[in-house]
């Protein structure tokens, strides 16, 4: 009886657990019933150097329960891509121009996650065993290159991508990283990118994307980031989050350009959406959950504005956020914002930035949304900088060897934050450097030198952790990952590393080899510093992905310049020249050898003797002929037989005809 009861109990337990599981699953299912969602947002921010940053942010998400094959809003191509290549996370960016870290700032979350190196940058994390990653990466590059009309397929070759160990915090081993610094970015790349949005550029904020305006900008970066959640096992559905951003820095055309006086030189240009894009927003994309435009005044600007108010003794502390803010003494907005956010005071700075929110939903075709800002008084401010300003350059000359130097200079603005830490005895600043070097730049890792404040330091004192995978000729690029611990008090640090320039096979040169070869940007990140802006949102219903993106703790990151290394380029016709010269030498050798073998010296001598015996005056005659010619007189040949001369002539003519005939035949039959 007991024997019987035990299985029964077991069965009960099992069913109970199963029930629980089922209930849990059911609740998940219920929660997952949420629809595919789409958000569109635009952030505008005046920059200190009279330019405007415009940052478009589109987000589509597919919940895990939506069937993998059928989509309502989410782009089909992306979900198929994720399923086919088992992509866990991927980022692809197309960039033109270089983010100016000094004047556009380097600390906010916009530059740290949206400032990208010129050309194409792609990294992807795969959810497959190690040995399958490389083939998947190769197929992924081909698919993306077809999807975005770009030459991303050049990242297929193993010399073009690398597998960083710990520079990217997401995944070690299953991540692949590659860049194409020379890729030109143009409209053919943005059209497929827009195709992934449900409204494309037909409605909503994306109508602003007027191609001539955005490509006229100083910086243009189009980015696509996707994350898939859920278990990656076969048959399970994946939830996918697709984030598409477009960051453009534009120079507004000053409306009062003709009236520039000395006092107005520092006045920021007044601009509006229609003046920088030439278009207005006529309502939101109906498929978007939210459609907002934000105007961000950063910390430096807000501090400066407050200062000005104090000077004017108007003592309106909260003028920026008060009801009549748009008749602010320093600037004027053409539209009334729907909400004003003030950043929660961060630990690092006393000032907080101000964000104006405009809801596009309220506008329509008959009353289009056109945000404009008019500055009344001149104002100068600085954007918040990254703790160190990174730049990279080449040293050395000639085509044989050189050195790469990465210089990190402390920026003034960061001294404030360092001061907070300076009470500690061992204040240290952690800096991560990730550098990929192509194989034909043969780096000698032992020659790594570190200079802190122009003083050479032992490498082991500064470098906490280092990972190097040396390049293999024609197989893989060299990867260098460094973790530096720098003293806070230092003002500059330089890393140098020497290299030899390799030789390429004649087939491996690109079409314009004399232009030089690119070394991709190094990534310098500061894990101790986090770029985040917290804006308190009162209504959780109308959640904004852009603001939640700002709240995320992301490392402050910056990219260095792309370097151009001139390599020795051969004369590409050289192989043929060499072939021709050696063959001529060989032909001469064979000819003379054969002649020498065939020669009958004695017989020739005998002939000469015979001739001289018969015609004694032959040699003197010749000499006299020559001298006569030199003198310029015609000497009559004593015994010139007309027959023989005509014979020679006819022979000559025959030879010429023969050669010509051969040439004609050759031309006719072979060419």
């Amino acid at each position, binding site marked *: 009886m007991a024997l019987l009861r035990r299985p029964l109990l077991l069965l009960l337990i099992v069913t109970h657990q199963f029930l629980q599981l089922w209930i849990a699953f059911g609740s998940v299912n219920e929660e997952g019933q949420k629809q595919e969602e789409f958000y569109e947002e635009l952030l505008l921010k005046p920059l200190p150097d009279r330019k405007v940053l415009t940052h478009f942010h589109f987000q589509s998400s597919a919940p895990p329960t939506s*069937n993998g*094959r*059928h*989509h*309502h*809003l989410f*782009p*089909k*191509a992306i979900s*198929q*891509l994720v*399923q*086919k290549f088992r992509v866990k996370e991927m980022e692809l960016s197309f960039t033109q121009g270089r983010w100016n870290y000094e004047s556009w700032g380097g600390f906010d979350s916009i530059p740290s996650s949206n400032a990208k190196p010129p050309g194409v940058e792609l990294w992807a994390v795969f959810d497959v065993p190690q040995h399958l990653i490389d083939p998947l990466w190769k197929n992924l590059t081909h*698919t993306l290159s077809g*999807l975005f009309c770009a030459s991303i397929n050049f990242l297929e070759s193993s010399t073009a991508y690398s597998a960083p160990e710990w520079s990217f915090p997401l995944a070690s081993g299953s991540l692949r990283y590659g860049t194409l610094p020379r890729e030109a970015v143009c409209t053919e790349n943005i059209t497929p990118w827009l*195709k992934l949005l*449900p*409204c*494309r550029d*037909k*409605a909503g904020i994306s109508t602003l994307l007027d191609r001539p305006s955005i490509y006229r900008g100083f910086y243009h970066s189009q980015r696509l980031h996707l994350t898939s959640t859920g278990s990656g096992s076969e048959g399970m559905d994946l939830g996918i989050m697709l984030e598409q951003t477009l960051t453009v820095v534009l120079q507004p055309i000053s409306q009062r350009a003709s009236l520039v006086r000395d006092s107005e030189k520092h006045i920021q240009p007044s601009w509006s959406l229609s003046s920088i894009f030439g278009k207005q927003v006529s*309502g939101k994309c*109906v*498929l978007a959950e939210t459609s907002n435009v934000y105007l961000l005044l950063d910390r430096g600007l807000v501090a400066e504005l407050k200062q000005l108010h104090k000077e004017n003794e108007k003592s309106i502390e909260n003028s920026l956020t008060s009801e009549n803010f748009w008749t602010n003494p320093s600037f004027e907005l053409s539209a009334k914002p729907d909400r004003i956010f003030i950043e929660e005071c961060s630990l690092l700075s006393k000032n907080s930035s101000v964000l104006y929110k405009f809801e596009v939903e309220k506008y329509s075709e008959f009353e289009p949304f056109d945000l404009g800002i008019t500055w009344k008084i001149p104002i100068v401010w600085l954007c918040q900088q990254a703790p160190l300003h990174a730049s990279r350059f080449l040293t050395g000359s000639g085509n044989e060897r050189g050195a790469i130097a990465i210089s990190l200079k402390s920026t003034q603005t960061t001294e404030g934050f360092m001061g907070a830490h300076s009470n500690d005895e061992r204040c240290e600043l952690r800096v991560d450097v990730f550098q990929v070097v192509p194989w034909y730049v043969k780096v000698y890792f032992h020659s790594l030198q570190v200079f802190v404040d122009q003083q050479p330091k032992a490498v082991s004192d500064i470098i906490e952790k280092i990972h190097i995978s040396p390049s293999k000729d024609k197989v893989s690029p060299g990867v260098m990952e460094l973790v530096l611990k720098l003293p806070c008090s230092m003002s500059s640090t330089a890393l140098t590393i020497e290299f030899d320039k390799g030789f390429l096979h004649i087939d491996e040169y690109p079409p314009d080899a004399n232009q030089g070869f690119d070394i991709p940007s190094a990534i310098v990140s500061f894990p101790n510093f986090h770029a985040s802006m917290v804006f308190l949102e009162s209504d959780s219903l109308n959640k904004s992905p852009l603001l939640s993106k700002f709240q995320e703790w992301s490392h402050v990151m910056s990219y260095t310049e792309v370097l151009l290394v001139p390599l020795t380029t051969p004369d590409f016709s050289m192989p*043929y020249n060499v*072939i*021709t010269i*050696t*063959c*001529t030498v*060989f*032909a*001469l*050798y*064979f*000819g*003379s*050898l*054969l*002649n*020498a*073998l*065939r*020669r*009958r*010296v*004695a*017989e020739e001598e*005998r002939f000469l003797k015979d001739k001289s015996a018969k015609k004694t005056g032959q040699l003197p005659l010749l000499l006299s002929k020559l001298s006569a010619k030199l003198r310029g007189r015609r000497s009559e040949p004593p015994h010139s037989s007309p027959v023989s001369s005509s014979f020679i002539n006819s022979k000559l003519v025959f030879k010429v005809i023969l050669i010509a005939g051969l040439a004609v035949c050759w031309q006719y039959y072979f060419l």
Partner: protein
Amino acid sequence: MAEISEANDSDSSELQDNGSEAPQRPESEPDFDPKLMRKTKPGLKRLVLTFSVLFSFLLGFPFLWKSVEIYRSPLPFREIDSLSTQLRSDNLLFPLHFHALFVGFDHDPDHLRRSILLEITKLTSQNPKCSNSYTLSVNVDLGSHCLHSPVSSPHSSSYPCGSVTATDFVQNDDVAVDERLVSVFGGKTKEYIVAVVKGGSERAVVGKHRHAWMVVGGGRKVEVAAVKVAELLVKLFINGGREEGSIRNEFMPVGADGKIVLSFNLLNADPLDWVYDWDFEKIDDTLLAPMIEALGPVANISVESQVLYHTPKASFSFWNQKLESYVFSTKDLPFFVNSNEWHLDTSIAAGGRSNILQFAVYVPSAKECPLLLQLPNGEISKTNGFISPMWGGVIVWNPQGCLNDSEFEPSAKNIIPIQDLENMFEVFIGQFRQLFGFKSVNVYAGASGDWNLLPSERGFTEWELDVLSRQHTCFNLHSCATTLVSLSRLVQSLPRMIIMDDIGKQVKFSLEAAKLALSNASSGAYESSAAASSQARSLAEDAFFHPSIMSVSYYSFEHCFAVYSPFFLPVSMHVVLAALRELRRYKQEKAKYLVWKAKANTSS
């Protein structure tokens, strides 16, 4: 240095040679002319030398030729040619077996068989590509016993006499009759059975399986029934009820890798007016899945769907007051699909060479709703849709009551009602059948009368699937043969193109699969021959589109010539001229010697 020393050596030998020659010159001899004769035999040394150099050069040429040769995997050109000639000479025969059962008639089965065969030969037109060989057996069921013709046929004798009676056909439920026939004959047999029953109301029905039956009125002659039976066999069971010579019959919308991707798109022309969504998953499970399973032997089908917005049509439509709707006519159809705005996309998941069929549901915007398709004869299309061969189909779906705007709240998300969706997908299945060349109506109107076709819930009936797999085999084999023939032509026309081993292997396997398909087809195994033929085709395409053929890495003759001519042209001039000179001189000298010898002989 080497040449100088060698030259010295030859000089010294020359001296010796001449030393033996010169002193012998007899100055005293009066009739000895040194220009015309000589006393010594001419030396062979230089002649041998120059000729050995020439011969070593000539011997070296094959080695050179071998060294600059490029790798070409041997392709079985002859077998390719024989395959294509075999297919062209109409050797692809599919055996079919027909069985006609006459219930309630007491006619001579031989006579019936002869008359049916006569009609069949009248009706069969010569299909230029694939033909069928058929056998016919006739059974006359007299209740108590049966009469067979031919007597020894294995097919007709398997039928148990008296199991089908006229009472089975009295009921009006065609599906039940169909089931009854299946239970009698068994669903597994590959033969096509037609039962002719004498009864009351006239009916002619083709079942879902491989059966058909007709009820003939009492007064009708059996010969009329024979004509009708023959037409059924030829037009429906052999040709699938399709029009002869239609170009659509020759193309199958199946990709080279045997895959079809059905991409369903819901197009909201203007989401500002209304946004419609659909419950595609449900339809996929209930309507599409059985059809996909049924078509399994012919093609591997996958389904995907998406909803697109802001997709206006490219053609104009006009307001028709009488119909109270917007009307677009058939002549506007080529411009209906707006390839600029309808980014239907090729599928990433499919990849390769699979064929994508796009099916689009077009939801018109408020300013063109309701939108109707007008046929050339002025009528309004019932399905409100059209197909484009090899591309797919389009249906215009008008939202309910789109004229009275009051019901609609703009930009609210609506779901297409499930009833409408089911109707829509039934139309899509009809369009899909049309893309395969079948009729989408349930009646076949033949010359000798109509046949009702029982529709299958799987979209395709068994006899239609037979037709498809026969045609698929035929199409695949022909396309495989043409691909291989063009490959062999290409390879032969470019003698300096590198051909990898892979290509050779693919061609070999493709030929093997084609042969297997041929032998399977002649033994009547449709499904395995269809599978083998699609494999043959995809291998042939793989070989033809192999990346190494696409690349420009072939080593041209001009290149070879440019590299080697600077060496071989001058050297060969020297060598050949030297050999010729030596030969001429040797002949001269020998003639001189002979003259002297003759003279010496005569003088002595």
